[in-house]
């Protein structure tokens, strides 16, 4: 078995060939889809649970507390226990709620984040699909989530939920522009939308360092806008627990609530991994030109570790935002986007285009 931790493509190729030699192409594809789907579902659940735990620990340390540390080693099993509790909870359906939409909404939210995970390379050669329009695909499927949020708010037949959903709609639609434009800035620099190719282009240096000041501005805007897009503090107006109790998911209970909860954390993971891929080189090790010894040491660290470390770093920053800033008001939120981020972003795309045209980037 040609298993190589630095390049998974040989391993996946080997499985594919083994399967092809054993059965008909139809069954090969079916089996592979099933296997990959299952593997990602597992990955999704584990990462989601771990992120909930990480959030609780990180915020606890920022708040002079300890956080969960009783169940399992250092409280690692706490979220598993919580999940089991949520699984057994009663699913309360509200009178006069729109039953169909009410039940569909959590699935739409979770599908959006699950689909986006498919196109992200987790390590060298380790991704579900290698689309030539990967960036575009991720942006497209991650917008499905907002439909789920809007439906949840609308169908709950609760005024708090409705206000939360309307806020969320206005917010996500606005901030998607900024996320999109900052991603486009990087696509202009890369010249391709294929994510694996984008990562490959960063072999000599990450885009954050390659793309001059323009990439740096795009990175900052991306961080701010994507925090807003995934409804996290200080932009968590859709939930705004001190104003709207729990916003759009006020009326949900049990596992349906858990879906919203999990989706929030997975969206954070996806946004962070997209940021890591576009700006920090994905699974690519950190290289400094002409430092051969240093580069060899960096190469020795497996790509998957690099990817998780970068994503984890961005996730930590996003958590840091939440636990230090007060929440914005809805009009301030929209002012920030339409009056500051968007014009700045448009200018930034132009600047990046000029930099690329004149060949001024590294």
């Amino acid at each position, binding site marked *: 078995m040609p298993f190589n931790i630095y390049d998974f493509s040989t391993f996946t190729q080997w499985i594919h060939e083994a399967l092809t030699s054993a059965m008909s192409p139809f069954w090969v594809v079916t089996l592979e889809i099933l296997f990959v789907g299952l593997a990602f579902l597992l990955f999704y659940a584990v990462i989601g649970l771990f992120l909930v735990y990480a959030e609780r620990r990180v915020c606890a340390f920022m*708040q002079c507390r300890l956080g969960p540390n009783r169940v399992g080693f250092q409280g690692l099993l706490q979220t598993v226990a919580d999940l089991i509790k949520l699984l057994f909870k009663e699913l309360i359906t509200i009178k006069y709620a729109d039953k169909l939409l009410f039940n569909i909404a959590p699935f739409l939210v979770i599908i959006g984040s699950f689909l986006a995970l498919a196109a992200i390379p987790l390590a060298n050669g380790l991704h579900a699909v290698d689309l030539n329009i990967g960036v575009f695909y991720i942006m497209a499927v991650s917008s499905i989530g907002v439909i789920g949020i809007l439906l949840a708010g609308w169908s709950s037949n609760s005024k708090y939920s409705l206000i939360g959903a309307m806020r969320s709609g206005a917010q996500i639609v606005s901030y998607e522009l900024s996320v999109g434009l900052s991603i486009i800035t990087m696509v202009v620099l890369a010249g391709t939308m294929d994510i694996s190719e984008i990562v490959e282009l960063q072999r000599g240096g990450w885009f954050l360092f390659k793309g001059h000041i323009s990439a740096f501005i795009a990175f900052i805007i991306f961080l701010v806008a994507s925090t807003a897009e995934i409804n996290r503090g200080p932009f968590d107006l859709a939930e705004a627990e*001190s*104003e709207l*109790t729990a916003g759009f998911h006020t009326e949900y209970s049990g596992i349906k609530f858990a879906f919203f909860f999990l989706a929030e954390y997975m969206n954070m993971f996806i946004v962070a991994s997209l940021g890591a891929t576009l700006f920090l080189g994905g699974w690519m090790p950190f290289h400094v030109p002409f430092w051969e010894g240093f580069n060899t040491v960096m190469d020795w660290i497996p790509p998957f570790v690099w990817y998780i470390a970068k994503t984890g770093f961005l996730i930590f920053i996003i958590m840091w935002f939440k*636990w230090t800033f*007060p*929440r914005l008001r*809805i*009009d*301030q939120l929209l002012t920030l986007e339409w009056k500051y981020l968007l014009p700045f972003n448009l200018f930034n795309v132009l600047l990046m285009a000029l930099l690329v045209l004149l060949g001024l980037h590294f």
Partner: protein
Amino acid sequence: MEQTTTKREDISSIDYQEFVINMGPQHPSTHGVLRLMLKLKGEIVEVVQPHCGYIHRGIEKMCEHITYPQTIHLTDRLDYLSAHMNNEAVCLLVENALQIEVPERVKYIRTILDELTRLASHQLWWCAFGMDMGALTTFFYGLRDREKILDIFEKTTGSRLIQSFNVPGGLMNDIHKDFQKEVKEFIKYFRKILPEYDQLLTGNVIFQQRTKDIGILTKEDAINFGVTGPSGRGSGFSCDVRKIAPYSAYPYVKFEEKLQTKGDTFSRYMVRMHEMWESMNILEQLIDNIPEGTHAVKMKPIIKLPEGEYYQRVEASRGEFGVHVISDGNKTPYRFKLRSPNFMNLSVMHHISRNHKIADLIAISGSLDLVIPDIDR
């Protein structure tokens, strides 16, 4: 004057695009069982109608049937965050009515405990205010420091929140021998830690944008509505009872009445932040100079006030707390009326928060620092 005469608006007539929402009695940021009926137009608050009475216990009526020393235990349960001040109002009233001069030691200790209570109360307000604004970390920072004051209380008074430490004629007990040392330690600690509060919240751009020019209460309105305490002083209304009618050891200490002129949410915030510094100044002036003496004067077993009307006011942490007693010479009061600061402060809710957003309403109610049991009594 036209401004203040807002007539009670009819909430039942709803235009299209308007809707009515019940904020409370169970809502995370009404800090208790306050029910605010809001008429909203989208995000804009058009009418705020407070509905009180969810925690009404009839304390005033109950007090007509119990003796004066027993009354103290009920005044604790009004504004539980300024329990000590509330007790003191009743004790001062009884002492003044009977013309008893309490020992100097009692005056000093009462004042020290007053200021400690004020500090603890403002700390809790700060945590809750931050949390209302969505900054969840403030909650734990504030509670961490408040715990130290509560520990001091526990050691001396035996109770952390509602102490009932005052009795007519003095104090229940003498202070613990570690009291002075611990208070001094706390002041030293808190002087270092209070700038951290400013770093975390006050200087934050989002916070300032959320609070400045929001919920402006003019000085005239503050006087007309009877808004006292830090909320009134935020509008420039000089209403500090400690200055106007000094009681206990307040005549002996030098302190400033912190005023702000603008009257917005941020002014009310800043008044409280400054008051924490002032409280520490007062504490420092008193803590080393507690005179020797007894902790209480001997009272008759049954206290009867002479026939007549009595009124005593003190500065509680949220404003002027007054006790009005009509006595017919019996051991129980004929009529017992409380002037609770929060009830008056609540009355401006509609006036200052209409035409703001829901998020502003939360910020405003946080800055008024309402304690619901004090409203309902």
